[in-house]
Every structure is written in structure tokens, then in C-alpha cells.
């Protein structure tokens, strides 16, 4: 599948933003963060900016963005529509939480809980969009949604650590949680990769042309010599040759490196901790960019069997 820049930006940025929103709201609710205006803004501000930037990027995936409002109407059947509704609805408790925290120096419990739940729900919808696509076997597996949720949580914790460290708040709990969660998250991702690799193909070229039991089928005459939108969208395969290397890079930059930087940051303090936090965030961003690029680029669509793929 073609890794569209708009979708990479949207899923990584908004995922991190919702992760941070949930983590910050719950840390505030648990009184780990003080009910002071500045403490609220340093976390909720970046979270809302990341969410809004991601949502703005998703607009560029639409060929007719001026009609984007229609995407809020079909929440009864469509995970994409549910995602749109959840994404926007989450702004209400998030803004209420930000207003209470920064204007009245109190953390409204209901708003904090609803913001965290809304964030989780939005990322769940994102995962479900991909997990329910039957023609793309690598995405159509039960762990796809948990992986999206786990990566959003890990992004939120690393961001929370860095922001707390940079603003003189206590980064201890988000830091420790990040150390505990990062290995589990990437372990889950490795399992997801393995399951995708091992899944037997469901569709062969012979079955796809209606003659499943007369031996293998080989394409001899293409349906068209020119390109097509469908082929651009589903025929992307350059990544598979480099998949193993890219997976290692994603694990290094998204997992091992931020884990070490958070650990060093927790052990040190002051300026070194701030630098470690920032470096951990940048490294995680690079790791997630590679992971998300590969998520799309590595996935095969059944439509490729009419264009030379033997089985999907």
C-alpha cells in the first residue's frame, strides 16, 4: 500500500497527541501533576497542537476536502466516520480540562476522565479502520488495533517525560512508566510483524481469475499498459526488500534509543535531563516514522494478484 505522507503524519502526530492528552489528564487526576495553570498548559497545549496538526494533515488525503464535514455522518457503520466523530468530540472534555486547569487551578475529574477515554477511543477507531480491511491481510489481524493503542501510549509517556523535565515538573512517574511500557509496546509490534509474516496467503492468482484448480496462473497480457490509480495505491512493494533492515531501525530509534535516553534522564537531572528528554522524543519520532511508513509500504492488497503478485 502506498505510504501517503498525509496518513503517516496524521496517524503518528495525532496518535502521539492523544497519547499525551490521556497521560497528562490521568497524571493530573492522580495529583502527580500539580493543579497549577502552567503545569496544565505545558502538557495539554502540545497535546492539542499535535492532535490538531495531525487532523489538519489528514485533510490532504482527501481529494475533495471541502466536503470533509460529511465524514461525521456515518458513525453507525464506518470506523473512519467514528474516528472523525471521536476525534472532534474529544476536544470538548480536553478543552474543559485545559480551561479548568489553567484558568481556575483545578483539575475537573469528569473532564480529565472523558478526555483520556476520548483519546483512547479515537486511537481505537484509527486502528479499527485498518484492522477491518479484509483485502489487506497484514492489517486484518486482531493485534493491529492494540498496536496502534500501545504506540500512542508509548509516545504519550515519552512526551510527558520530556515536557515535565523541560518545565521543572516531576518527570519520575511518566519516565518510569515509559521504561516499563516501551519494551512491551515494541514486543507487541514484533509479534504483529511475525504474525503478518507467517499468515498463509488467502488469495492466489489462479483463484482470482476464477480457475482455482487447474494449476498456477501466470499473467501474459496486461489489462493496460499505462498506470492506474489503483496500481499506484496498491502496487507499492519497494519496501519489502528492505523490511528486515527497516524493522531493526524502527526498534532502535523507536524503542532502544528512547528507552536508554529516558533511563539516563531519570538518573541525571537539570540540563542533562532536559536534553535526554528532547533527544528521546526526536528519536521516537524517527522510529515511529519508519514504523508507520513500513506499516503501509509492506502491506499487500489482494488487487495485486491481477498484476503479477502470485498470492496475497
Amino acid at each position, binding site marked *: 500500500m502506498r505510504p501517503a505522507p498525509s496518513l503517516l503524519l496524521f496517524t503518528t502526530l495525532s496518535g502521539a497527541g492523544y497519547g499525551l492528552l490521556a497521560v497528562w489528564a490521568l497524571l493530573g487526576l492522580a495529583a502527580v501533576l500539580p493543579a497549577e495553570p502552567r503545569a496544565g498548559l505545558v502538557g495539554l497545549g502540545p497535546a492539542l497542537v499535535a492532535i490538531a496538526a495531525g487532523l489538519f494533515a489528514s485533510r490532504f488525503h482527501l481529494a475533495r476536502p471541502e466536503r470533509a464535514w460529511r465524514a461525521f455522518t456515518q458513525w453507525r*457503520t464506518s470506523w*473512519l466516520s467514528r474516528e472523525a466523530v471521536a476525534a472532534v468530540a474529544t476536544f470538548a472534555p480536553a478543552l474543559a480540562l485545559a480551561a479548568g486547569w489553567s484558568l481556575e487551578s483545578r483539575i475537573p475529574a469528569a473532564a480529565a476522565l472523558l478526555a483520556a477515554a476520548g483519546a483512547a477511543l479515537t486511537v481505537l477507531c484509527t486502528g479499527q479502520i485498518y484492522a477491518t480491511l479484509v*483485502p489487506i491481510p497484514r492489517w486484518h489481524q486482531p493485534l493491529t488495533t492494540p498496536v496502534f493503542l500501545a504506540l500512542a501510549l508509548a509516545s504519550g509517556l515519552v512526551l510527558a517525560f520530556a515536557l515535565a523535565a523541560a518545565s521543572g515538573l516531576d518527570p519520575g512517574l511518566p519516565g518510569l512508566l515509559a521504561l516499563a511500557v516501551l519494551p512491551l509496546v515494541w514486543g507487541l509490534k514484533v509479534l504483529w510483524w511475525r504474525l503478518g509474516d507467517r499468515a498463509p496467503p488467502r488469495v492466489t492468482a*489462479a483463484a482470482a481469475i*476464477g*480457475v482455482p484448480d487447474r494449476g498456477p496462473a501466470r499473467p501474459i*497480457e496486461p*489489462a493496460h499498459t499505462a498506470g492506474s490509480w489503483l496500481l499506484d495505491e496498491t502496487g507499492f512493494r519497494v519496501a519489502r526488500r528492505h523490511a528486515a533492515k527497516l524493522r531493526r531501525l524502527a526498534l532502535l530509534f523507536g524503542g532502544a534509543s528512547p528507552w536508554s535516553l529516558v533511563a539516563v534522564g531519570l538518573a541525571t537531572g537539570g540540563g542533562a535531563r532536559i536534553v535526554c528528554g528532547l533527544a528521546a522524543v526526536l528519536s521516537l519520532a524517527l522510529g515511529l516514522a519508519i514504523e508507520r511508513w513500513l506499516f503501509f509500504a509492506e502491506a499487500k492488497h*489482494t*488487487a495485486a494478484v491481477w498484476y503479477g503478485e502470485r498470492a496475497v
Partner: protein
Amino acid sequence: MTALPDPPPARRLGLVIDLDTCVGCQACVVACKEWNGGGHPGPLADLEPYGSRPAGTWLNRVHGFEVGEGAAGRTVYFPRSCLHCENALCVTVCPTGASFKRAEDGIVLVDEAKCIGCGLCAWACPYGARELDPASGVMKKCTLCVDRIGDERLPAEDRVPACVAACPARARHFGDLGDPESAVARLVAERGGVELLAELGYRPTNRYLPPRPGRRLAADGDRLEDAPAEGGFLGWLDRLLGD
């Protein structure tokens, strides 16, 4: 509304495509483009039609394959277009309600005034039957020529999809597959029509008729005969001329 009609439509309009007689001439592809470029889903984009990288939107594509080995091998032309599935995931994933399945006859259509061009329905279609039109920014797909099949002003024999009318090999048939007494349903029953990729669970309406076994000789060498040794004019001539 992107919910599928409940209960599923009793009338199931669709195509029955005979893989035995399809010769891969692409007439249905061209007829489809010609009719639909100006009809209900039109225009269908053609980008750089005379340039070095021509591209465009088509609702029907015919792929040529070779199946089987040696003497059992044969060519199969596979026309690929929307199969108007009963369990159409392309409809339920649509976030805007643009993609829908008609309750009265099961035809899957796109309301172009509502489509935002997100492309998710094309991802959800295992048959690759949808293409996003680069010029209008909306999703295009086979409509079974809705603007033809129900047009009372046309003579009855022309109220079939353009691809069916154009096929010179009579490999394409149109009708109600929900009615077991219809000509297409009987054809499917007689010839063992295939539900394409049934294992994916989309319950397509269209059916493909498998190629007939065919009359094959063991090897082509058997057909090239020597002059009969037992006699006759050619045998006599053969002996006369020697080695």
C-alpha cells in the same frame, strides 16, 4: 446511508461472464469507457492521453492469464469489474454515505455529490473494482449502466449494460441472479458458475463461468501424419521416391 439494505435485496442484478468464450478483445472495456464517459458516472478522466504517461479511469479491465502447464495449459481472459457484492465492505466503510447499495436491485453505486475522495472504499474492495478519478476527485465504479438498463425510451434489447451489448463473443450476460428462473441463474446452474474468492466472505453477485475442459490431443506431433505405409497413391509415391 452506508448501512447495507436489510434484509438483502431479493432482486440481485449482476453479470455472468463466460471465461470459456471471452477472447480478450477489450471491446467491453472500450464500450464501458465510451458509454460511462458521457453517462451517469461521467466524465471518466483521461490524463495525458497523447503524452508519454497516459493514465485514466476505467470501470472494467480485462487481464490475460495463462493457466496450467503443458498440454493442459490454456489462456484465460479475465474481465474485472464491480461484482455488486451482497456483503459490500466498500459500502459500510464509507464515512460520508456516498457509497451505497440499492435496496431494490442490489446495485452498488457512488453518490458523487457526497464523495470526499478518501479512497477507503477502494482499499476495502478485494477485487480492485474502484478507481479514484484524478480529475473529479471522486470514486468511480461500475454502475451496471443504471442509466441504460432502466431507460424505457431505449428498445428492450438495448436495456443491458454497454459491456454486454458490445461483447462480440457473447461472453457477457446480464440479469437477475436473485431469481432462480432467470436466464442468467440457469446459465450459472448449468455451467457451475464460480463465486469469485468466496472465501473472503463478500458474497459477490456476479458469477464467472469456468472454461470448458476442451478437446485436447496428447501432443501436437500426433496430428502430423506420414504417408500411409500400407499403400495408396501417396504410399506408392513415397516408396518410389525412396529415402
